[in-house]
């Protein structure tokens, strides 16, 4: 399966990607802005995500973004991460111009009213509580990031390091943020659906070409995280039913080939029910009740994280030893050809599954374009097929050794039904 993509660039710098899929009545307009929480001031974290909310607050020309979109049968949402902010619309293809009209309109500037700012600060505060603070283990990433990163802006989570930071956002700072980051040259527009590339590009030009390029800003100058030989440990004490650990290492940046080796390593460890960690530490030895491993996958050096909940009575030392033992087996190259083929097969079919819908394809193409090049999406399966046992062993030895791991612990306190 090849995902065709045609690329253009408008004079104002906006990149346009088009993917034709004739099998669906729905079209997708995806607009990715190259701004994430890594671009925030450390004393005002959570700002990129707050701004994502404000982009739905309407403009002078279109006071109600959602109504205008829903009237055309469209549906929209957005997400923000450390690296970028992504807005997407699905809409019947006959009404695709409505989506382009709305996105081009808000690229010229949302109407940043006092009320919108005040209400969205409250909404984001509730989101913070709902997803991170009012959930057992919900604040893990809020604590793990500053444990692993000391200088790089990945040290705070996208929602922000402090719920109070976004309180400080004034209409002026909000407007400055918009002017700096929400420019055509800082964005990738992807159009996907039953539309041919020439027509899609003509429409993109019609709606976006007259948007001023804006002042170009200096390229990012983010502080690199120095490689440390010794990781850190943090203990949290919480009223949770089980002890839990998060063990993390910094690994290669996304655009490097090395990244995919780490992705594959986490698949050997925890991909599917037959992953090593589950098979050995949950099913066979009954030391954990749940265990997982994954790459965070950011553009700059991200993390490999192993997280698990301990079975009753299992000591923390045992838990760490067992995880490290599994890493040591990988470092020693103890991987069978069948096991390697298994994770390749899983990658190939999950690639097909993930790219079945036109929305998923549009978002993936935009993301690949941001990393290096949209068409690199078609090289992924081959790339994973070329990862060897030796590459895995080298990567583990170089980056995933026990001394370099940082560990966050949830220690369970008294059992009663009250939270702290």
């Amino acid at each position, binding site marked *: 399966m090849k995902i065709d993509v045609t690329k253009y660039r408008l004079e104002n710098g906006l990149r346009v990607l088009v993917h034709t899929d004739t099998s669906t009545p729905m079209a997708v307009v995806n607009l990715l802005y190259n701004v994430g929480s890594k671009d925030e001031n450390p004393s005002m974290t959570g700002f990129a995500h707050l701004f994502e909310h404000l982009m739905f607050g309407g403009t002078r020309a279109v006071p*109600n973004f*959602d109504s205008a979109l829903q009237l*055309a049968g469209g549906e929209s949402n957005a997400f923000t991460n450390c690296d970028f902010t992504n807005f997407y619309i699905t809409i019947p293809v006959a009404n695709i111009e409505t989506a382009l009209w709305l996105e081009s309109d808000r690229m010229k500037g949302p109407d940043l009213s006092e009320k919108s700012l005040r209400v969205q600060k409250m909404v984001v505060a509730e989101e913070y509580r709902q997803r991170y603070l009012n959930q*057992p283990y919900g604040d893990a990433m809020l604590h793990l990031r500053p444990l692993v990163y000391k200088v790089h802006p990945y040290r705070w989570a996208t929602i922000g390091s402090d719920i109070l930071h976004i309180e400080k956002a004034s209409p002026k700072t909000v407007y400055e943020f918009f002017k700096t980051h929400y420019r055509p040259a800082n964005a990738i527009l992807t159009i996907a659906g039953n539309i041919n590339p020439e027509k899609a590009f003509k429409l993109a030009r019609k709606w976006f070409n007259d948007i001023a390029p804006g002042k170009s800003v200096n390229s990012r100058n983010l502080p690199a995280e120095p490689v440390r030989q010794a990781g850190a440990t943090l203990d949290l004490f919480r009223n949770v039913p089980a002890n839990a650990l998060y063990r993390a290492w910094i690994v290669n940046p996304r655009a490097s080939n090395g990244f995919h080796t780490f992705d594959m390593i986490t698949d050997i460890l925890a991909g599917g029910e*037959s992953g090593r960690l589950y098979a050995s530490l949950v*099913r066979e030895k009954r030391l954990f009740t749940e265990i997982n491993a994954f790459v965070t996958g950011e553009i700059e050096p991200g993390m490999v994280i192993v997280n698990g909940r301990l079975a009753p009575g299992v000591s923390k030392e045992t838990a760490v030893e067992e995880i490290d033992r599994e890493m040591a087996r990988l470092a020693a190259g103890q991987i069978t050809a069948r096991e390697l083929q298994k994770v390749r*097969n899983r990658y190939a079919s999950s690639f097909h599954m993930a790219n079945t*819908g036109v929305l998923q394809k549009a978002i993936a193409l935009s993301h690949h374009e941001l990393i290096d090049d949209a068409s690199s999406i078609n090289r992924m399966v081959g790339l994973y097929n070329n990862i060897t046992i030796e590459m895995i062993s080298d990567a583990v030895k170089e980056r995933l050794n026990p001394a370099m791991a940082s560990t966050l612990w949830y220690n369970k306190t008294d059992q009663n039904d009250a939270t702290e």
Partner: protein
Amino acid sequence: MRLNNLTSKPRVRLPHIPVLTEPDVIHLKNGIPVFLFPSGNTGIVRLELTFRAGTLTETQPLQARFTNIMLPGGTSAMTAREIDEAFDFLGSFPNYSVDRDRASVQLYVLPESFNEAITLLRMVISDPVFPPEELEMHRETRLQTYLINRQRVSFISLDYFFELLFGSDHPYGRRVIPEHFGTIGRESLIGFHRLCYLKGIERITLSGNFDESSIKIVVSQFEEFPPVAAQTRPPQPFPAAEQKNKLFIEKQGALQSSVRIGRRIVGMGHTDFTGLKVTDTILGGYFGSRLMANLREDKGYTYGIGSSLFNLNLTGVQMIATEVGAGVTENALREIYREMSNLGAVRVQPSELRLVRNSMLGDLARQFDGPFASTDSYLGALEAGLSMSYFRLLEETIKSITANEIKRLAETYYNENDFTEVVAGSMR
């Protein structure tokens, strides 16, 4: 062509709804229907079997869930670990789930591995041996997950909502407690499997990238199963409406309160149902809904609020769900009831009605976008004893319902006294 101002707003066309015709169906010699949703535009094929094996048919708490969990726990020829490894090696993704009315086994797989994966899946369904050590592991791990869930206000409120709605003795309303994990035993699962899986295949769906040979494989693997057993006992009747229809469960220190407000309501086959779908959407069924506009976009009480109308075998259910800041809990409750009663008091304006019509038509098109979405939508109707005609009626209702009719439905069905309210969290 540079007319980028308000006047250049593109003209809106009504979403094109795919022709909603019945899918092809074949019947195995045991009577089990296989519904076909072919599409060459995906590299994946999906097989799904639904069983009459939900909590409604269980005789003991957790019986339905643990039988479902334990299907891939080992067969007479393979261990759990070997089964997991075999599915993973084939690049296939099995998924086992249970709800109140039925259980489901689903498999996503590449066409080239279809034969092998389906053969494996059939063994898992027909020949599980429920090894004691595997059961022991799941009892321990699932208990821990349950204890974690029980700390979430959203879990607590939903749990008690169903208890109040259906009573603690009815399978729809019975809450699981930690002791249940200790009492669920192997014999109980074996008995449930024999009755509800071996004689419980209600239907099969095949979707995505398959061909004639895939159909032959499905036929040969599943035609030997016995037909669905006649219901052994009639479904247990609900108690009359509970006396107490408001419940507050305090969770000290909670930063948010979780709110569930709802009622038993007419089912999917009732003539009012599609109209209620529209009414429910106006209230809380899309981003621009009244509850979202009021509680989120105007007052900032919540990250999100929604209302949904769904069907169980024995009744329809209407449910409003949200998590709100602890300090504004009472205000939020008041606003929810206000929005409900407004719908019965004041006719919807034409502009809002047009918005909700178009939004729902777009949503209907999304529900039939691609083979997997189409299958899921169609199954929803089938399980209520309906067919594609339900969606045609829904489309017709969306296009033609009047403001008067919406007002009548809200007056009839949205009386605060008929609603059950559960709040878990803190009022301070």
